[in-house]
């Protein structure tokens, strides 16, 4: 039946919700063109960091190996110095191939690249610059310049295929090292001795480490080194108030086993003592905590510059075995042991980083100075403050290569 209808309505009613199956080949097309996302693999952070570090090292070592070999630059220097003489010689020569060399040193090298070396085993390091000088000072009319040019042509620059024979290098070295050590801690500087001294200031004491270091050269750039060190470190907890008394207060982190029991004085310890309210004399002193370790480091050394004076970066870690542990009270001229700390761990570790400068004093003998920062982890099994000890040492050693 005909009726007057709004055109919008007509279309809406018929077309609003209609459906048409798409052509079958559409799905194939869509499927083919979908970007397949690879499943996300979360890479542990340490792998990423190590990867970046390895790449950086690779770049540095490549750069050092391929930029400006020393022998080449010395020859360039030589040629630059004697430029005029070389030009004179060449000008007097009639052989056209040698005339190419007239301009300057760069041309000389360009020509050399094209010429097949007369002697394939000839190496840059074998060029005797003195001989060159001698030849150059002689009259250019003689036959000798020709000889010089022949030899110059035989410099196997760029196209060198044969490698020079390197004398067998001594890869091992052993050293006795000695180092003053400064011990301190990161963070709040709280004392780890006992909870009641949590807010007392602490200070590091200068101490000492010595030992044997053995190193093995892996390649031109990397060495691995280890050894054994005896480390004595300690720190002082300041502003301890002590009064003579009848009983020893038990400190949670100190066992009541005085090392030198005969010397033990009975006394009480406290971080604060109000003297105005009683007449008992009290003394201000400090607690020295001394501990020692046998340290076994394992470090990698990376050479930045070589030569007589070499610069290296050292990084690694150490395992530390506790071999000394004592707490001593010091006040008004007396010192007495009060026991050993029970919160020091038998084994702990340190992360080490530093630089190493070595100086060759004889063929197989060199000295090295190496400032190192060693940050300790799990030094204390429990401690009151956020105590992260570290020590700085300037390791000086006498090294012997073998």
């Amino acid at each position, binding site marked *: 039946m005909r009726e007057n209808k709004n055109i919008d309505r007509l279309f809406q009613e018929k077309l*609003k919700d209609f459906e048409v199956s798409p052509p079958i080949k559409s799905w194939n*097309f869509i499927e083919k063109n*979908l970007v397949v996302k690879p499943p996300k693999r979360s890479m542990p952070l340490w792998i990423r960091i190590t990867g970046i570090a390895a790449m950086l090292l690779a770049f540095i070592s490549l750069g050092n190996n391929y930029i400006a070999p020393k022998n080449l630059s010395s020859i360039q220097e030589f040629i630059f110095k004697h430029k005029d003489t070389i030009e004179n010689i060449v000008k007097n020569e009639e052989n056209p191939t040698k005339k190419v060399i007239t301009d300057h040193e760069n041309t000389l090298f360009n020509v050399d690249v094209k010429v097949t070396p007369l002697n394939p085993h000839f190496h840059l390091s074998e060029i005797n610059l003195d001989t060159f000088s001698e030849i150059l000072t002689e009259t250019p009319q003689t036959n000798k310049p020709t000889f010089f040019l022949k030899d110059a042509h035989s410099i196997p620059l760029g196209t060198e295929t044969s490698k020079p024979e390197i004398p067998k290098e001594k890869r091992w070295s052993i050293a006795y090292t000695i180092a003053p050590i400064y011990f301190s801690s990161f963070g709040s500087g709280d004392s780890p001795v006992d909870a009641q001294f949590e807010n007392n200031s602490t200070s590091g004491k200068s101490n000492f480490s010595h030992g044997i270091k053995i190193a093995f050269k892996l390649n031109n750039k990397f060495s691995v080194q280890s050894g054994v060190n005896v480390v004595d470190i300690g720190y002082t907890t300041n502003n301890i108030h002590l009064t003579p008394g009848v009983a020893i207060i038990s400190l949670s982190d100190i066992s009541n086993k005085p090392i030198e029991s005969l010397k033990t004085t009975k006394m009480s310890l406290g971080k604060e003592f109000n003297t105005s309210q009683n007449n008992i004399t009290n003394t201000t002193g400090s607690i020295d905590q001394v501990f020692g370790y046998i340290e076994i480091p394992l470090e990698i050394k990376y050479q930045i510059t070589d030569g007589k004076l070499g610069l290296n970066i050292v990084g690694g870690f150490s395992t530390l075995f506790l071999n000394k542990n004592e707490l001593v009270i010091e006040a008004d001229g007396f010192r007495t042991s009060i026991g050993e700390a029970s919160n020091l761990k038998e084994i702990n570790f340190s992360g080490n980083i530093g630089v190493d400068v070595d100086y060759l004093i004889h063929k197989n003998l060199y000295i090295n100075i190496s400032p190192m920062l060693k940050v300790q982890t799990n030094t204390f099994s429990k401690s009151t403050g956020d105590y992260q000890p570290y020590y700085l040492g300037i390791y000086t050693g006498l090294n012997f290569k073998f």
Partner: protein
Amino acid sequence: MSLNKLIKQCALSDKKAQATVYELFGSKLFALCLKYSTNKQEAQDNFQDGFITIFNKIGQFNFKGSFEGWMKRIMVNTVLQKYRKKNVLNIVTENIPDEVIVDVDEDEVSLDMLLKLIQELPERYRLVFNLYVLDGHTHKEIASFLNIAEGTSKSNLSRARFILKEKVEAVLSDQISG
């Protein structure tokens, strides 16, 4: 499997989930493309391109509104992008009455016929008519989609209605006389 789970699987490029979504919504979206395009071939191209975009961007769906609505928007956008690329000339604004009435017997007009009439509309008229009449957008929205003035959208709509009325009536009179 719930729709939300299906969408998440699609975001992980799960082929099976993608095929299921296509099965569920393919017909609706293809019909949408037919209305917005000039012919079946163009509709198919738009449909395929739009669906590829849907699967590539499915990870961005935030599960807040209707998924079907989200897909439709992508499809319409695909068409509109092509329209913008073509840079169709603006048509001069004309004043034509709002309501257009057609004298018709509904049984005489088929869906195919109406679809064909829409497809035959000039590009901009077709888009405005679809957006306003069939998909419920306002002139303000249409103006921003097509980068035209609101007045232009209104006049385009009126022109579209007028053309459609004439064509419907012409077809019907052909049918009667034929």
